[in-house]
């Protein structure tokens, strides 16, 4: 039998009011980072698998939006810093063991890849507004010739970005809910799924819409499996980890996690997309909207619920 333990401490009143150190900025950044990773992975995969002729204008628009969305995410991260003037310190050092240092370099390195991909496959409305400039033309013709290597760089950069958003949380061992190697995979798969969903929102071509829907169903199935692995892995680690998991399974975050994230954001869109693929339902913008909302809320739930249970309680 577990012995009965009661704790009291000088700082108990302080901790009772909550010990929240990361607010809305972090989940918003994790969502946008994952979304951009998903956009890069999807478009790169289409180029590598089917050639650049299969890249539709919706995908070109997605490529153009990626650096904008990533910058918004980095803006959210910047808002979270309590010593904003020291932000340059991230780029005066490289600490490979610190995921946040690694991630800040990944963020910088994916920008040129995105820019070159945009130049190689420009969105038509954007391309017509590009000024004629000798240097720009040379970079553009170079990028056009290097589309396949660029697609590989986009794929690897997207995977690094997607995995890192989860690893960032999982290396902070002090929070039992995040203490799982599954988080890296979960954020990669979820990010890819939101990237595909964002492209489905803009896609007009029916065949491409169906191709994206097939990919999304596969990604959602994988995401459900990784969520199960994450929960089961933690629940079998010990009392503290079980308590952390109970926050999302039966505690204050359970309605949001089980009801909105798992049911509304994964199961419902998975069934609707599978039905649409079999011709039993219409392809609808509602489905990718649900996936995107579910992806955003997943990150809110994980970041907030993870701060509920920590190693120390008083």
């Amino acid at each position, binding site marked *: 039998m577990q*012995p*009965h*333990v*009661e*704790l*009291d*401490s*000088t*700082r108990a009143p*302080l*901790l009772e009011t909550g*010990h929240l*150190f*990361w607010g809305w900025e972090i989940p918003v950044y994790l969502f946008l980072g994952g979304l951009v990773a998903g956009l890069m992975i999807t478009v790169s995969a289409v180029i590598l698998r089917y050639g650049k002729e299969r890249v539709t204008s919706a995908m070109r628009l997605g490529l153009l939006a990626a650096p904008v969305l990533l910058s918004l995410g980095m803006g959210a991260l910047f808002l*979270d*810093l*309590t*010593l*904003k003037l*020291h*932000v340059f*310190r*991230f780029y*005066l*050092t490289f*600490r490979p*063991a*610190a*995921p*946040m*240092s690694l991630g*800040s370099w990944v963020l910088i390195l994916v920008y040129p890849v995105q820019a070159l991909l945009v130049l190689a496959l420009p969105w038509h409305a954007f391309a017509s507004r590009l000024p004629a400039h000798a240097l720009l033309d040379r970079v553009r013709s170079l990028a056009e010739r290097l589309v396949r290597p660029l697609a590989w760089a986009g794929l690897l950069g997207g995977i690094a970005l997607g995995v890192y958003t989860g690893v*960032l*949380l999982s*290396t*902070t*061992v*002090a*929070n039992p809910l995040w203490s799982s190697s599954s988080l890296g995979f979960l954020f990669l798969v979820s990010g890819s799924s939101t990237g595909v969903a964002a492209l489905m929102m803009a896609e007009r071509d029916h065949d491409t819409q169906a191709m994206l829907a097939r990919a999304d169903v596969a990604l959602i199935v994988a995401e459900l499996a990784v969520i199960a692995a994450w929960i089961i892995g933690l629940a079998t680690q010990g009392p503290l980890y079980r308590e952390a998991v109970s926050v999302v399974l039966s505690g204050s975050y359970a309605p949001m996690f089980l009801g909105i994230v798992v049911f509304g954001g994964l199961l419902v869109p998975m069934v609707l997309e599978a039905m649409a693929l079999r011709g039993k339902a219409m392809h609808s913008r509602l489905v990718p909207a649900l996936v995107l909302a579910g992806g955003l809320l997943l990150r809110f739930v994980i970041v907030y619920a993870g701060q509920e249970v*920590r*190693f*120390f309680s*008083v």
Partner: protein
Amino acid sequence: MRRVMVIDTSRCVGCEACVIACKNENRVPEGKYRDWVTQEARGEFPNLSLEIRSERCNHCSDAHCITNCPTGSSWYNDDGTVQIDRSKCTGCKACIASCPYGARYVHPDGFVDKCSLCVHRLDRGQPTACEEVCPTGAIVTGDADDPGSEVARLIRRGSLHVVHPEAATRPNVYYIR
């Protein structure tokens, strides 16, 4: 040199003088703590036991806060203690997320702050503020590598434990039961 702190919980009466002395010495802002006193009651009446601990940063030898700090703001001092370089801190709070003891907090001036083991005092040959003020002499700081030191003698005597050993951080603050 490996500076450690050994705290005799059988001497501690939970007066919290260490908390006040630390706040005074290190100008710890209102509502924040570099050290705090935890009372842990175990068992069912009448078989009860009480342990009172003055807790703080454990100056871990495997400090997750240092591993996860993206700018190198948290670093190991030559004496093994964990220190913070305020000029490198961005306030990203990765270290706060990494500390299993909740020893770190965001200072109102933006940087992250925690117990420094009063190295500025130890280097001058003075005891830490908490050690100096402790009315029962429960707190002892010193060099564990020096076999003649008081802390080395207490460590040899045994019956020591650390807080949250399961966090695998190799803490350097020891408690005598």
